[in-house]
């Protein structure tokens, strides 16, 4: 069934279809309409779940951590400073290997206050051990929210579904709402790995020593470092799992894109523009315009940011002469974080493409198609300066 709704409603419908059982959230713009919608679904009886109106984002994730441990499918959503307030809990959720799904409705972070979009909030949380997926449009919001639960539960790692605040969250677009029966076929009920059960009591997430230790049966149990190794190992393995799940979804719903990235007109492209989120789609408009000028431009939209699909990225980009990375976040004191990852993924190539890096759309600064076209047009040769960080440019800056 097609509907025209906001991105936040698309996410809420996805969570409803995924039959999330415990939802905890704290209001923050531009996420709020998503969890408002869920509370409406629950209070009106359309959705069977518990909604906990907590007193902070820190507590929102605490509720999800505990509920997920106790065997319920848990969901939360937040933005910007709310996500940062969860920071400690983000590490905890991943460390405890809990398949929580969270929508991050991307917004710039204070100070100073901004309510508008960039991706500094979730990008700055990339090293918390969560899977991060960036979304292009409403169809992907609803589909990915459903897929995220299956991914999380198969690999026991929490998933952030990140979509641009306002640009996607408050914009209305048509999208297809999958039917419940098919979603149920795709997503089996949640079976927790470690369950809090009074009949089989365990002490979960207790202090773990620097070295290994023998358990009560005389077997060798992990030290803290083994548990961290397993998280890293499982995150790397999850790239294949995510790819398989993407294919499964495509089989049932007959749509879906690349699990790791999406290529647009890249087959013969001399220059490839790279972006994440709604920007990846916007770049397609610029690529089309430049192709009319005779410049062979393609676009790669990175969907999976953590784990970083370095092999797929390298494969997609290394055939081009130049790569132009557009980002709505910055690793202060260096360059755009995505660009940093991309240059490292390309490093193994014998003759890697040159890389340009642009920062844009920070704090909701409007991104104009013409500006994207100009930036790509001006990036068709090796950048000046000793390295990419030196040649970093900002689009639309009026300083």
């Amino acid at each position, binding site marked *: 069934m097609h509907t025209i709704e906001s991105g936040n409603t698309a996410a809420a419908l996805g969570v409803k279809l995924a039959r999330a059982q415990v939802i905890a959230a704290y209001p923050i713009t531009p996420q709020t309409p998503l969890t408002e919608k869920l509370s409406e679904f629950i209070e009106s009886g359309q959705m069977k779940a518990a909604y906990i109106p907590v007193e902070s984002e820190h507590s929102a994730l605490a509720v999800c951590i505990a509920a997920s441990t106790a065997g319920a499918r848990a969901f939360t959503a937040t933005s910007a400073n709310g996500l940062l307030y969860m920071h400690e809990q983000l590490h905890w959720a991943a460390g*405890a290997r809990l398949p929580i799904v969270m929508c991050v409705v991307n917004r710039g972070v204070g100070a100073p206050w901004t309510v508008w979009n960039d991706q500094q909030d979730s990008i700055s949380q990339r090293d918390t051990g969560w899977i991060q997926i960036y979304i292009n449009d409403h169809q992907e919001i609803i589909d990915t929210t459903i897929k995220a639960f299956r991914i999380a539960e198969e690999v*026991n790692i929490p998933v952030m579904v990140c979509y641009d605040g306002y640009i996607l969250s408050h914009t209305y677009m048509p999208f297809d709402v999958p039917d419940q029966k098919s979603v149920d076929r795709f997503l089996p009920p949640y079976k927790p790995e470690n369950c809090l059960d009074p009949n089989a009591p*365990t002490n*979960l997430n207790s202090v773990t020593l620097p070295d290994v230790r023998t358990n009560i049966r005389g077997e060798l149990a992990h030290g803290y470092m*083994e548990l961290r190794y397993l998280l890293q190992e499982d995150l790397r393995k999850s790239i294949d799992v995510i790819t398989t799940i993407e294919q499964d979804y495509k089989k049932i719903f007959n749509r879906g894109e690349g699990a790791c990235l999406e290529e647009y007109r890249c087959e013969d492209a001399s220059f490839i523009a790279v972006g994440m989120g709604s920007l990846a789609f916007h770049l397609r408009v610029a690529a089309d315009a430049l192709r009319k000028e005779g410049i062979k431009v393609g676009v790669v939209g990175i969907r999976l940011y953590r784990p970083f699909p370095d092999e797929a990225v390298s494969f997609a980009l290394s055939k081009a002469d130049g790569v132009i990375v557009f980002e709505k976040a910055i690793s202060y004191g260096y360059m755009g974080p995505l660009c940093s990852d991309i240059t490292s993924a390309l490093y193994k190539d014998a003759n890697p493409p040159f890389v340009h890096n642009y920062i844009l759309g920070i704090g909701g600064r409007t991104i104009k198609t013409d500006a994207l076209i100009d930036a790509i047009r001006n990036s068709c040769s090796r950048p000046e300066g000793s390295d990419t960080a030196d040649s970093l440019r900002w689009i639309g800056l009026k300083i």
Partner: protein
Amino acid sequence: MGTRECNQITSAGEPGPGDGGKTGSWRVLRPVIDPSICIPARKNIAACFICWLYCPDCTITRTIPPTIDYEYCKGCGICAEECPTKAITMVEESGFISEENK
């Protein structure tokens, strides 16, 4: 053998004694019950059990007579202090060690 065989992806501790080791070794003084003064021992009835009630370490039994698990008793002395008939005395542990070493 590595730790993979334990099949856990997070810390899930299972109940068992002696997480802190044989904590009896922490003791400097050993509580010793005199059955001729201890109420349940002397009268051979279920009574008193103040020592059991207050033991912070679950090392005193609620039995007639009460017994002390010296493997884990940390020797805090609460039982001796609270015993209403002063049936428990705290005795230098070193004496027992030299005794056991003989």
